[in-house]
């Protein structure tokens, strides 16, 4: 199997409504379901927004896109936003060609994503 995609959570105490996670590895059909469960495991009911740092994810196939869309739909139901940061060229290409950019807030870095969400957060 393709090595498991490592999930890391990067909680920010000043932003309790925002889950910040990073994916490391290559995301494909063989490890996508595991990653989905791992992400659900770190999301709590307080998390209204999700930031996913993809800067260490050089590959993502259509199964991976499906996971991201499922997370987006879950966060959407909470009235929140899913922001993606650090897309490498191959991910940029697949997002662009599939038109999925329109469903996510795409930012260069996690810090940019936080700034983007800040106006939506309670003071």
């Amino acid at each position, binding site marked *: *199997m*393709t*090595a498991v995609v490592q999930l890391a959570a990067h909680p920010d105490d000043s932003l309790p409504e925002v889950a910040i996670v990073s994916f490391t590895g*290559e995301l*494909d*059909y*063989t490890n996508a379901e595991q990653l989905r469960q791992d992400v659900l495991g770190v999301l709590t009911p307080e998390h209204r927004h999700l930031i996913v740092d993809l800067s260490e994810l050089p*590959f993502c*196939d*259509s*199964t991976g*896109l*499906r996971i991201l*869309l*499922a997370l*987006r*739909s879950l966060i959407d139901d909470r009235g929140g936003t899913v922001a993606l940061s650090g897309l490498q*060229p*191959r991910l940029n*290409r*697949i997002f662009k*060609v*599939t*038109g*999925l950019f329109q*469903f996510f807030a795409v930012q260069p870095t996690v810090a940019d994503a936080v700034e983007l969400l800040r106006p939506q957060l309670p003071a």
Partner: protein
Amino acid sequence: MRVNHCGRWPITQDLAGLRRHIHHHAQRVGLTGQRLDDLLIAANEAAINVLEHGGGSGVLALWHDEAALTIDVTDTAGRLTGDDVRRELPGSDSPAPRGFGLWLMGRLCDEFAIHQEGGRSRVRLRMRLNPLER
């Protein structure tokens, strides 16, 4: 034109390994940058379809001549037909969670053809080897 058979690999859960092989050989014959990425994305989609819909086992063969690099992905279900190369846009209204694989193969490769024979289906993906791109 001389045909060069670079390799044949079974399609297993080790997709990362399969992608390494493709990357290595495609780069050697001069495919780089976005066109290499496009081939890699498309070939992976063909391979995961074998695992998910195509009977669970199959083979990926890579060969080239002077004009083009070809990847043939053969499954053991034989249910894909020439008609499956149709190219309609998935998910332009709401985010469609399915149906990107075949569409991506057609969108990203210079040739996308499906041949059904003897209980197998073969997806052919081709990229021109343009001398100026080398």
